[in-house]
C-alpha cells in the first residue's frame, strides 16, 4: 500500500484508469436508467414509485461507502502521514455529502406518496441526516484553519470520531422499530427482491461507484496540481 502513496505514481496509475471509469459510470448509469424506467415492472404495492429506489438505495450505499473510505483514508493519514491519504479523504467528502443529499431527497420524494409524509424522525432517517451534518462539519473544519496542514489533521480525527455513526446507520433498521424498511439485498439468504428489479439496482450501484472513483481521481488530481503550482510560485 505504501508504494502507491507516492503522488507521482498515483498520477501514473490513475491517469489511464480515469477514461475507463468515467465511461463505465456513464454506461452503467444509462443502462440502469433504461432498465429502471422501461424494462422493469411496477411494484404491486408501491406502483411506479418503486423506480425511485433505483437511485435512492445506491445513493444511500454510496453515502456510507464514501464515509468509510474517508475514515480509512484519515486513519492511514494519521498513522503513516501519507499526504495522498489526506487528499483522498478531503476529495471524498463533498462527493459523500452529495450522495447523502441525493439519498435524503429521493427518500423524501418516495416517502411523500408511500408513507404520506416527506420526513419522519425515525432512527434511519435521523442517523443519515447526522451523517450529512458530519460531512458538512468535516468540510468546514478542514477549511477552518489558516494552516491547511493542521486542518487536515483535525479533520482526520473528526472523520474517525464520526465513524461511530456508520454502523448505527447500517443497523438502525434492525435495532429500532423504524418506518424505514430493513435491508433486502445484503442478507445472509438470497436477496428478497426480484431479478428484474435487482438488475437496474445493481447497475446503478456499479455506475455510482465508478462515478465516485472518477470524481475522486479528478479531485485529487486538481489538489496535486494546485500544490505543484504553489510550490512553483514559492520557488520563483
Amino acid at each position, binding site marked *: 500500500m505504501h508504494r502507491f502513496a507516492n503522488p507521482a505514481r498515483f498520477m501514473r496509475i490513475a491517469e489511464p484508469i480515469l477514461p475507463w471509469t468515467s465511461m463505465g459510470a456513464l454506461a452503467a448509469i444509462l443502462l440502469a436508467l433504461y432498465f429502471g424506467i422501461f424494462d422493469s415492472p411496477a411494484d404491486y404495492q408501491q406502483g411506479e414509485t418503486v423506480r425511485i429506489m433505483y437511485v435512492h438505495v445506491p445513493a444511500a450505499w454510496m453515502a456510507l461507502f464514501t464515509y468509510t473510505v474517508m475514515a480509512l483514508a484519515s486513519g492511514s493519514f*494519521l498513522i503513516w502521514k501519507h499526504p495522498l491519504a489526506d487528499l483522498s479523504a478531503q476529495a471524498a467528502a463533498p462527493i459523500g455529502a452529495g450522495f447523502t443529499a441525493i439519498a435524503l431527497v429521493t427518500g423524501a420524494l418516495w416517502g411523500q406518496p408511500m408513507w404520506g409524509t416527506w420526513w419522519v424522525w425515525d432512527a434511519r432517517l*435521523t442517523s443519515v441526516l*447526522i451523517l450529512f*451534518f*458530519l460531512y*458538512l*462539519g468535516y468540510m*468546514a*473544519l478542514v477549511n*477552518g*484553519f*489558516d*494552516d491547511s496542514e*493542521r*486542518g487536515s*489533521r*483535525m479533520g482526520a*480525527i*473528526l472523520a*474517525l*470520531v*464520526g465513524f461511530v455513526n456508520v454502523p448505527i446507520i447500517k443497523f438502525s433498521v434492525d435495532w429500532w422499530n423504524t418506518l424505514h424498511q430493513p435491508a433486502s439485498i445484503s442478507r445472509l439468504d438470497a436477496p428478497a427482491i426480484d431479478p428484474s428489479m435487482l438488475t437496474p439496482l445493481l447497475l446503478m450501484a456499479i455506475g455510482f461507484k465508478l462515478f465516485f472513483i472518477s470524481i475522486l481521481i479528478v479531485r485529487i488530481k486538481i489538489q496535486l496540481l494546485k500544490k505543484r503550482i504553489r510550490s512553483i510560485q514559492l520557488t520563483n
Partner: protein
Amino acid sequence: MGTLLAIIRRDLSLVMRQGSDAFVVLIFFVVTVTLFPLGVGPDPLILQNLASGIVWVSALLSAMLSLDRLFQTDYDDGSLELLVLSPYPLELVVLCKCLVHWLTTGLPIMLISPVLALMLNIKTGAFLYLISSMALGTPIISLLGAVGAALVLGSRRSGVLIALLIIPLTIPILLFGVAAIQAATEGYSASSPLMFLGALLLFSIALCPWVIASSLRQVVS
C-alpha cells in the same frame, strides 16, 4: 494523583475568579427556556408536553456556548504546551479538564433545570427522571464538547465550528434524555433510556480522553 487534583483545583479557581463565564452560560440557559413559553404560547398543556424537550435542547445549546474557552485560554498563555509535555498522561489531565467543565456548566444547569421544568408545568413524577437523565447526560456533553473544542483549537470561527461539529454527535443524548422523561410522565419504565445514557457516558469516558489528547498533541506538535 496529587498533580491531577492540583490541575482540577487550578482550573476551578480560574473559572471561579473569572466568575462571569460560568454564570453567563447559566443565564443563557434560563433565558432560552423562558423564550419557549413566549414563542409557543403559555398553554400549560402544550408546555407540559414540550417541557422535557425544551429543557434538554436549551441545556445542549448553552453547553455549546461554554466550550470554546475549554482549552483556548490554556492555548493562548502556553500552559497547554506544558501540560502536553508534562510526564503525566495527557488523557487523565484532559479528563480532569472535562470534569471541571462539567462542574462549572453541566452541574449548575442540572441543578437549575427542575425549577425551569416546574415553570413549564412538568408532571411532578418526572422530576427524578429529569435530574437523573441530566446527571448522566451533561457529563457526556462536556466530554464530546471537549473533543470539539480540541479539534477547532486555533481555527477561525471556532465557536460556530464547535457547535456544527458537536451538535450532530449529541443527538443520541438528547433522544435518550427526553425519552427517559417522556417514559416517566407516560407511566412506562424509564430504565432503558437511562441505561442507554449510562452506557453512552461510560463509552465516552473511555474513548473521548484519547481523542482529545491526540488532537491536543497534534495542536502542540
